[in-house]
């Protein structure tokens, strides 16, 4: 604990107290939080006006974010980091946690993404949830989510970040299960919940380790102390943070929940499970970059996790017939790219955030498009039942198309500028790494092109394979306008931020920049050409299989690989085999309150604990004499232990 003393004096001077418009940053949290509270407790009076209030408050937060961003741009690059002290949260002797906000280019980038995309999705939900009787609750949860997500990105210490982290988890959980009266949906939240609990344990351990080693949990303090800590500790902290990040961002091996989370309303999938919350893991890694830079092993694990997930998501995405689940697999894969970039160190951080930003736009846009399609097709999600929608839903088709071009990385759309940079960065290095990770990223780009084209062709082109009673139509204005705005972003954002170098110089004060001399093992033009060739091949293959040939309405049995991919590469089976079966064999009589609460999909570990519990509770047999025996046994064991020790 000797570090405690040395730390107190080495407060980094880089951040200054917030002034001017920045000092109103608390409004960012206050607006949506107020909205959530108002709508939750407001009662039925607000059934009508409530959604509109939520939308307005979300835009209000967005305006505050923009104003702060503008004032930050006006400032000198060295003076863009501010803290805003809210109140003293946990003052406990020498250990003092403040509730403070950290406003720097990284956090404000997220604020803009969350509030802007979030507000658009609020607007979209006005149309999408039109007929739902419980709209008020839905908008309350949405506002709650925005507030929690802003807490995650704005907090200046790990503890408050953790508070927001739990908050987004809770909001996500509430929103996934929003349509709980639909039986299949009610239990979908559970897997998400379980994966996130595992992640939370990781986060808590990481924070505890920081506290033990550094005596602080604020970013500045931890960063300052990290340079004196041993690499073993830093690696442990890094890995535990990564565990939390993996759970939140649906990264291997905790990725299984994202597909099930698609049971929630589509705007939720767009906002939480595509644009913002699932990228919190990437934010966490980038925010902790000082720790990861000092722990190469942890960094390597980040890269591996990213590479594995990007391929995993891409392969799974190729076989899904459910429109939203295919998009979810693609989200997983794209976040894999971001993780990969974040693990590459200083050359990757800015591009991880850049891709996160563009992905936020194009993936949210595509999800909204998917919502629009489902809206038109009576909530049908099976792509084999779509086809030929392009002419009937022109706006959806165009906006989705722009997102499609963006995610594949076709120039000049957004993905080209962000993803290709990650591929280039992955090829930088020495030895085997650039080849393994670079090739993974490169091949991933080809597969992405294939499955996204498949999805696009099956939905909007080819023969009409609808059931007879469906009459597709374009969505109302409140839904199309957000889609159009997001599509414009998907098209242009990359061009504006990428080649001009805006994003890298903007983030440089926070994440630093790569010093020169980092050349990929293959030259940049070669890589670009290779990527584009692979993308073209992917599109061609999809065109060959799904446009030239007719798409059967019932999925063919398919090859072993297809079947494996459809079943999420057997991850549930692996879970079951590794954890559940032993748990069941251990007990044979699992008695649960309700099977919904802990169905097979929840995860084997839960069943294992359940099995242990079912066995252990037999000790509680109701006989007072056997209770007395356990007590006496306890006494004897304690005295016996004492006797042995002495």
């Amino acid at each position: 604990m000797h570090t405690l003393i040395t730390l107190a004096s080495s407060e980094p001077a880089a951040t200054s107290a917030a002034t001017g418009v920045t000092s109103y940053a608390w409004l960012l949290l206050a607006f949506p939080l107020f909205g959530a509270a108002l709508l939750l407790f407001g009662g039925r009076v607000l059934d009508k006006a409530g959604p509109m209030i939520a939308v307005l408050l979300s835009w209000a937060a967005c305006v505050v974010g923009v104003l702060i961003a503008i004032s930050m741009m006006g400032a000198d690059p060295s003076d863009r980091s501010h803290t805003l002290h809210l109140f003293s949260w946990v003052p406990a002797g020498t250990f003092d946690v403040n509730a403070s906000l950290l406003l720097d280019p990284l956090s404000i980038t997220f604020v803009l993404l969350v509030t802007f995309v979030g507000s658009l999705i609020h607007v979209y939900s006005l149309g999408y949830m039109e007929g739902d009787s419980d709209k008020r609750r839905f908008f309350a949860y949405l506002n709650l989510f925005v507030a929690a997500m802003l807490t995650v990105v704005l907090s200046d210490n790990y503890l408050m970040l953790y508070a927001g982290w739990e908050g987004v988890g809770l909001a996500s959980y509430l929103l996934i299960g929003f349509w709980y009266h639909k039986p299949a949906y009610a239990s979908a939240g559970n897997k998400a919940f379980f994966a996130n609990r595992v992640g939370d344990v990781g986060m808590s351990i990481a924070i505890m380790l920081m506290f033990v080693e550094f005596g602080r949990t604020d970013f500045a303090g931890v960063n300052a102390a990290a340079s004196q800590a041993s690499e073993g500790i830093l690696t442990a902290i890094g890995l535990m943070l990564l565990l939390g990040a993996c759970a939140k961002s649906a990264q291997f091996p905790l990725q299984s929940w994202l597909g099930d989370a698609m049971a929630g309303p589509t705007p939720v999938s767009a906002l939480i499970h595509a644009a913002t919350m699932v990228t919190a893991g990437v934010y966490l890694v980038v925010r902790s970059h000082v720790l990861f830079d000092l722990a190469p092993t942890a960094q390597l694990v980040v890269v591996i996790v990213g590479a594995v997930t990007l391929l995993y998501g891409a392969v799974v995405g190729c076989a899904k017939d459910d429109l939203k689940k295919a998009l979810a697999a693609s989200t997983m894969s794209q976040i894999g790219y971001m993780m990969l970039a974040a693990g590459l160190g200083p050359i990757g951080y800015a591009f991880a955030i850049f891709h996160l930003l563009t992905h936020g736009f194009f993936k949210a846009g595509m999800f909204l498009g998917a919502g629009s399609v489902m809206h038109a097709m009576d909530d049908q999600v099976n792509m084999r039942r779509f086809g030929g929608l392009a002419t009937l839903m022109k706006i959806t088709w165009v906006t989705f198309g722009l997102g499609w071009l963006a995610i594949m990385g076709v120039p000049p759309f957004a993905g080209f500028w962000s993803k290709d940079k990650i591929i280039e960065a992955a090829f930088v290095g020495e030895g085997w790494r650039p080849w393994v990770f670079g090739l993974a990223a490169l091949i991933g780009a080809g597969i992405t092109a294939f499955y996204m084209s498949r999805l696009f062709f099956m939905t909007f082109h080819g023969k009409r394979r609808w059931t007879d009673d469906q009459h597709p139509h374009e969505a109302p204005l409140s839904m199309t306008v957000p889609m159009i705005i997001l599509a414009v972003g998907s098209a242009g954002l990359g061009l504006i931020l990428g080649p001009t170098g805006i994003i890298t110089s903007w983030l440089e004060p926070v994440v630093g920049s790569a010093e020169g001399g980092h050349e990929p093992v293959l030259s940049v033009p070669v890589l670009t050409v290779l990527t584009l060739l692979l993308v073209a091949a992917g599109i061609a293959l999809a065109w060959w299989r799904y446009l030239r040939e007719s798409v059967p309405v019932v999925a063919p049995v398919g090859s072993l690989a297809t079947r494996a991919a459809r079943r999420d590469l057997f991850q549930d089976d692996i879970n079951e085999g590794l954890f559940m079966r032993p748990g069941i064999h251990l007990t044979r009589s699992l008695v649960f309150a309700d099977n919904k609460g802990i169905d097979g999909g929840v995860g084997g570990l839960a069943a294992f604990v359940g099995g242990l519990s079912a066995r252990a509770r037999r000790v509680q047999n109701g006989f007072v004499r056997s209770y007395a025996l356990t007590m006496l046994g306890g006494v004897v064991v304690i005295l016996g232990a004492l006797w042995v020790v002495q």
Partner: protein
Amino acid sequence: MSLVNYIYLSAILFAIGSAVVLVRRNAIVVFMGVELMLNATNLAFVTFARMNGQLDGQAIALFVMVVAAAEVVVGLAIIMSIYRARRSASVDDANLLKL
């Protein structure tokens, strides 16, 4: 005779008392086991007082007796009400609350 032997006796009585709690079914007898344990303790207190050349231990024993008497009042009342409701004073029959 050495005073230490009284301590041994007290320990043995205490053990017998706890054995009674464990093996007997009748609630009254179980409770008598507990009383035996308390009185074994009293013996220990008195003996230690003698060994230390004090009177404190004897006084403590008086306190313990009072407390034990209060315990008897409450305990017998509870056992009585159970017995009247079930027509049985067996502690093994009181077995509705479990798992």
